[in-house]
């Protein structure tokens, strides 16, 4: 059951994304982008829900149970209101060859195997300890994850904004099994899928008017897989983090959220898709829920600032040229 966790996450994210796009009347998003939007929505909704509910209760199981009810309601609403869209998105259209899909799936499976066989680097990490502490004590932030004892001041107020380990504890509660299986195996696999989705969108954008887009996109994604696998040997690079520390908030931030922020910023500035501003704000906001502000939100804002400056320079340059 625990091995279905990435599939469950992708399905829930897709349904959330489908509903979100329906609410904002956005018909421009494909299946992959809806999954990404839904992932951001799940991360933010969990973070907000925990932050609000810890004002009322310290019990993790009651928060988990009520969040499950929320997810079930979301699942039902998505099926009820977006059934036609879901059917349309899941239809296989005009596929000339299955080879690109087979090749991409193969490289993804090789990465999955590497994640399953290689021990993660947990030297300075406390994610699994936090998950175990939450599950054993049924408490949110009052127990010290390093020792498991009740202390007066276990986590700072800024640290309490980071709810990603609690999300992993929630998944462990649903799927059972040892939490290490969820944290060290399933979450990095989910991260790989998100990484491929985001860079698939990048490939679509960079190769938009290309005649051999299909084969080039496959090569692009295969290259990404090879870079990630090579990352096992390139210590402290972003590729290393996705393979050996894929469960950390930093990894999810730098391998999925920040590339997606750049993609959305490009859509807003160049393609004038102003509805993407909502998703951009969600992406920036989700960095607060998954990692410390210093390592998530601030880099995301720097990235946005650079994109804004480039857009402004182009606009001013265009105006000067026109004159």
């Amino acid at each position, binding site marked *: 059951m625990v091995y279905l966790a990435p599939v469950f996450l992708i399905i829930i994210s897709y349904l959330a994304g489908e509903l979100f796009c329906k609410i904002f009347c956005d018909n421009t998003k494909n299946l992959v982008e809806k999954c990404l939007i839904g992932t951001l929505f799940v991360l933010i909704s969990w973070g907000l829900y925990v932050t609000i509910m810890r004002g009322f209760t310290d019990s993790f199981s009651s928060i988990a149970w009520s969040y499950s009810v929320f997810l079930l309601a979301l699942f039902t609403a998505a099926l009820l209101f977006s059934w036609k869209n879901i059917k349309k998105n899941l239809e296989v259209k005009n596929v000339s060859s299955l080879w690109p899909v087979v090749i991409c799936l193969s490289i993804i499976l090789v990465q999955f195997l590497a994640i399953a066989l*290689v021990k993660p680097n947990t030297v300075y990490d*406390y994610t699994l300890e936090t998950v175990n502490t939450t599950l054993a004590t049924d408490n949110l932030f009052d127990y010290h994850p*390093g020792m498991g004892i009740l202390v007066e001041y276990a986590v700072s107020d800024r*640290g309490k904004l980071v709810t990603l380990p609690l999300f992993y504890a929630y998944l462990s509660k649903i799927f059972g099994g040892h939490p290490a299986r969820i944290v060290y195996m399933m979450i990095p696999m989910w991260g790989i899928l998100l990484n491929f989705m985001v860079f698939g969108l990048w490939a679509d954008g960079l190769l938009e008017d290309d005649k051999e887009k299909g084969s080039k996109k496959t090569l*692009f994604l295969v290259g990404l897989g090879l870079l990630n696998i090579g990352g096992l040997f390139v210590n402290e690079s972003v590729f290393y983090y996705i393979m050996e520390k894929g469960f950390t908030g930093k990894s999810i931030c730098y391998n999925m959220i920040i590339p997606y922020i*750049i993609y959305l910023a*490009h859509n807003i500035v160049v393609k004038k898709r102003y509805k993407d501003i909502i998703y951009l704000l969600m992406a920036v906001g989700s960095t607060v829920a998954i990692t410390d502000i210093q390592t998530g939100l601030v880099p995301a804002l720097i990235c946005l600032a650079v994109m804004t400056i480039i857009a402004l320079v182009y606009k001013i340059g265009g105006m000067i040229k026109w004159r």
Partner: protein
Amino acid sequence: MAIMSAVQKSFDMASGSVGLSALFMAGLILLWYVMREKKKEVTGLFWYGLVMLIFVINPLYIILIEKKAPQLKVDNLYLWLIPTAPVLLYSLVSTIAYMRNNVKSKVQKSAFIAGLVAVFILAITTSYSGFSISFTDKFSYFDESEEQVFEEIDKMRNYRSLDFVTIVGPEEIVEDARKYSGYFNTLYGKEMWRGSFDPQFTYSYEAWQYDLYHNISKAHNHYEEIAECSFRNGCQAIVLDRHLFNKNGVEIPESLANRYYLSFENDDYLLYLRSSAKNEDS
């Protein structure tokens, strides 16, 4: 000189290796060439990559970080804002496309592909500081010896119907005990030697905890003190490193200060359980 050395180190860290950094620079040049060929799709990527590169490796940024926010150097994750992956991947795709359109001979194509593979491997292997990877043991994330010890402790916990068990032991046992089970508490945490889990907060340990930690590393000489201190603080299980006794020619004790008895041993560890557990077990 220190600034330039910091710039060079930052550049290495941005991609993770000298090789990948060099490939990224080459990729940027290729993007500039493609942009000149009027392919507008790469314009955004080129300018973002160039601006971010200049932003994070310029001496002014490094001076500001050193003076105003030295704690940001701990992670240096801003360097990952440099778009290494898309620049490298677009360069790869463009290069292969060029080869397909302009290189007709099969031998030349094979040599081209072999060259690309060699460059990739060279780029990956010029890692600036490598940790060796370790493999899971039958898909388990715990060392086999440690797992045996934890299983024995868990059996004791279930037998005595305890909610939680307090353990003390060497660093690797303390680190992995909390990962193995949330029902295992420890008298000190791994942040004593690894650093705090919360960047805003550091837990203060007491003197007896530091003494206990130091005594555990020399358990062959201090096992009586370890037992007394652990007993005073409600510890139910003590794990000692067997190699310390073997290396120093010290006989392995059957009990520690008549408080804990030897319950389990394997090639690496000795597990002592609190004496009241022995009476109930028998």
